[in-house]
């Protein structure tokens, strides 16, 4: 299949060069109007136009895209689309449709996929800033600014393919402002970090589909560091629900403008249907165990020892958390240890505030910014 002129319009010689470089082609010979490229693995040659001003430029690009389609075993339309967006990471989300739908998708399904795809990107962007099991507050400015730059590309045939364009040339303001002259070295753009985080988190979820000797919830808690969050799980669950095969299949074409050293220009990740149905439960679990900043605790000192609590935790408070009596472990400074010791001796209560982490037993209260004695009995 040869793409139409419209499908290849706007593709520049620079786009072609970047695409070829990213796909293991190297420029061997150059003339005024043409350059000869050789493929690293096959030693195959192809000709690429060097100037868009020549009479038959669009014809040359059409033929080149057709040839690359045959060579890569891909739809030439996808290749043309990738060439147009060499300055962006392109993510293709494939929704499996039944044969009777003839490559169409119901409006309500399409709308749901688009909304959840945006949620998926938002979750990845927030995890790229700081991995967390659940995001509730407003996203930081760099995340909102990044989302404003992403685009929904043309849909493509092949069941039903949604195309997401994530320009890597986008720079968050902070990247410009806070860089000193010394620090001015090539840095991964935030947009690339977002898409890399998404890719890494999907791989982690795919890996979680293999059998484990631990509860799945505990496995997912460990995936938080990989960028998995309750928000991502919720989005993927709903996306999978729209697909006949209940899988989430994403194809990544990485921008040639930010090369990934030693890695392929494209990658594909399928989150299989054996794991997608439980993603909703995993989202609930991650929400439950999500660290809660600013959590206030009032309780009695149960233990003042680092013998049993481990990992530097030297105080156990007994307190009511969400209606149930719980033990909560804390790490204390010397001054706080003094207060705790007084509370232990006098039987008085303490009031503290920090980040509640419910992934552990006993629960942990991290980074307390307040620790004081109170007298409930007076």
């Amino acid at each position, binding site marked *: 299949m*040869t793409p*139409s*002129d419209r499908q290849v319009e706007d593709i520049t010689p620079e786009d072609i060069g970047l695409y070829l470089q990213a796909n293991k082609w190297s420029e061997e010979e150059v*003339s*005024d*109007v*043409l350059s000869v490229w050789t493929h690293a693995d096959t030693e195959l*040659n192809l*000709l690429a*136009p060097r100037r868009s*001003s*020549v*009479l*038959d*430029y669009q*014809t*040359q690009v*059409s*033929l080149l895209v057709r*040839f690359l389609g045959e060579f890569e075993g891909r739809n030439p339309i996808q290749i043309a689309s990738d060439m147009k967006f060499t300055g962006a990471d392109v993510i293709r989300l494939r929704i499996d449709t039944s044969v009777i739908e003839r490559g169409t998708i119901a409006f309500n399904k399409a709308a749901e996929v688009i909304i959840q795809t945006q949620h998926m990107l938002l979750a990845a962007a927030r995890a790229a800033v700081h991995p967390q099991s659940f995001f509730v507050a407003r996203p930081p400015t760099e995340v909102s600014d990044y989302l404003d730059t992403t685009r929904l590309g043309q849909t493509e045939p092949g069941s039903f393919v949604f195309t997401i364009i994530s320009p890597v040339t986008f720079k968050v303001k902070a990247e410009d402002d806070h860089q000193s002259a010394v620090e001015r070295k090539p840095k991964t753009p935030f947009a690339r970090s977002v898409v890399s985080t998404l890719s890494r988190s999907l791989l982690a979820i795919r890996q979680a589909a293999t059998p484990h000797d631990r509860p799945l919830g505990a496995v997912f808690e460990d995936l938080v560091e990989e960028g998995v969050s309750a928000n991502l799980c919720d989005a993927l669950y709903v996306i999978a629900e729209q697909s006949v095969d209940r899988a989430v299949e994403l194809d990544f074409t990485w921008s040639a403008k930010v090369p990934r050293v030693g890695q392929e220009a494209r990658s594909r990740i399928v989150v299989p249907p054996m794991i997608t149905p439980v993603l909703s439960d995993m989202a609930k679990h991650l929400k439950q165990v999500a660290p809660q900043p600013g959590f206030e605790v009032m309780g009695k000192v149960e233990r003042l020892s680092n013998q049993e609590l481990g990992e530097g935790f030297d105080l156990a408070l007994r307190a009511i958390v969400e209606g149930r009596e719980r033990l909560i472990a804390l790490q204390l400074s010397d001054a706080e240890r003094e207060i705790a010791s007084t509370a232990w001796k006098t039987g008085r209560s303490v009031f503290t505030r920090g980040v509640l982490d419910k992934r552990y037993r006993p629960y942990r209260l991290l980074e307390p910014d307040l620790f004081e004695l109170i007298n409930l009995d007076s």
Partner: protein
Amino acid sequence: MQNLGATPLPEPARKELYSYAYITAIAASAQCEILVPKMDYDSLDALVLPTRGGRLPLSVQLKATAADCINNDNVVFDLPIKNYDDLRSTERGIPAMLVVLHLPNEEDRWVTHQSDALLLRNTAYYLNLLGSPAVANQMTVRVHIPVEQQLTKGSLLGLLQHVATYRRLP
């Protein structure tokens, strides 16, 4: 069936279709594909694309004439100036040539169907105009194609081989 008042296909359109039939048959015999761009904006009617080897293509501008055009072992043809300028231009990446199909005067002899053959008359000639001089003509330029430059399976393969080796036409 309702009479939709269809008009007969005009003669230029009929000649064009015969030209495509001719080049398609020759290309197929040389194991080449023919690609037809939707619009002829750069004097390109068809691309001959080999299915083997280096697969370097050849652009073709097709013309047809039923006039008595053979003179002193040359096919004489008045080529529109736009096509002449496009074909002589060095500003293209794919080698391009003019192909003129010489048809009989009588239209009923253009194609003859027999029980064992489909005969397309007469023959087509090719010409490489790359690097030809600029002319001041406003409408057409008279070009002369040596009659030995017949477009056949053998000559097409030779042209493609030359393109594959030198990236230009002889």
